[in-house]
């Protein structure tokens, strides 16, 4: 059995000490004796998740997809390589993190300040959501769809990560215990699905 996982740092295992052993994707696969294929990356956008699902991988090779959508304000672009564009929250523009300068910073600052708006983000999120669900359904691959944007979205997800049910670290990611509970919830959903 092969399971496809994708998302942002919440799926990647941000802030975990032993990420590859402690993240929920590893725990689920261990329990099901399945192969874990985790394509998540910190700071990833929904556009990256869709690109990897539709273009970079073949979902028909997998028995299950577990996908975690993220903040719709994030995006990506290709300039010699795929580059992530990440701001820290969903609604308001905040300066980039000081610790590292980024490529094309003036362009993206202008984008978030003058071009991007919340409504556009919502529509993009809805298109991404439909695209992921339809793609898995057409290819007959069961899907568990999660989000960490549950405070701001109107869309319905199987698991909403931004919840006190999942304990957090100081940086806002799920703790080791949070990942254990997420794994249990995914396994419960799979049992109910059967």
């Amino acid at each position, binding site marked *: 059995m092969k399971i496809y996982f994708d998302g942002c740092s919440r799926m990647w295992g941000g802030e975990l000490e032993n990420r590859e052993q402690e993240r929920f994707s590893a725990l689920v696969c261990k329990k099901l004796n399945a192969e874990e294929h985790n394509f998540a990356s910190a700071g990833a956008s929904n556009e990256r998740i869709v690109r990897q699902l539709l273009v970079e991988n073949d979902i028909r090779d997998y028995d299950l997809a577990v996908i975690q959508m993220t903040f719709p304000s994030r995006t990506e672009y290709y300039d010699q390589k795929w580059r992530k564009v990440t701001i820290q929250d969903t609604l308001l523009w905040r300066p980039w993190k000081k610790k590292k300068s980024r490529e094309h910073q003036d*362009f993206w600052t202008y984008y978030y300040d003058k071009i991007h708006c919340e409504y*556009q983000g919502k529509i993009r999120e809805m298109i991404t959501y439909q695209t992921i669900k339809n793609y898995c359904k057409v290819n007959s691959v069961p899907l568990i769809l999660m989000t960490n944007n549950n405070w701001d979205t109107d869309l319905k997800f199987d698991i909403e990560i931004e919840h006190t049910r999942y304990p957090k670290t100081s940086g806002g990611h799920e703790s080791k215990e949070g990942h254990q509970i997420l794994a249990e919830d995914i396994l419960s959903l799979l049992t109910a699905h059967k």
Partner: protein
Amino acid sequence: MRLYFGGGSDVNGAELGTDWNDRLSLRFSKLVSNNFYAEEYNVSVGGGGNHRTVRQLLTDFRPISSYDAVIIGMTSKYRTEYHDGKDWKRVKVIGNTPSKWWLENKLSTQKEERDFWREYFRIHSDEFFTFNERMYHTTIKNYCKLHNVPLILIGRREISDLEFDFCFDEPWISKAPKGHPDEAGHRAIADRINSILLFNKDFQKKL
């Protein structure tokens, strides 16, 4: 019976007739709809991009299953749109094969935020637009397939390597001076769509 048409100026009937009413009666969406005694629902717009086409399809006020067929013309992968807080604004990449140099340096067709969009084309390479086009193509196909709505997907061979039912730039479609299908071209397109639909088993059930 109701038919959905989406896309850019080719679907909208650019260069047809002398006024808007002429265009409405001559474009292939009307001819196909008349052929099947169907309601024509044409949401195309000149300069419309694939993002707009997908957005309209997925957010239409009617469920997609209330249409008996969907006919979509995909457009230049460089076209995009943004929402300015009030309306969706097209980024006006006119013509089907603008050069990267033109996009990065001229973009004279774009009246609003032109400097920003020039910079956008400078820092987004072709890879980005090609991937996006492929994603939109897959999204449209899957959406119709899931809802069992027959789909005819039309492209332009000169700007895309993707698979289409046919392309607007094929030689059997005659053209007006600026490259859009002319009146005879629209009739030929309508004939082709009619025959594709008549051979489609899902569509046959609806007749």
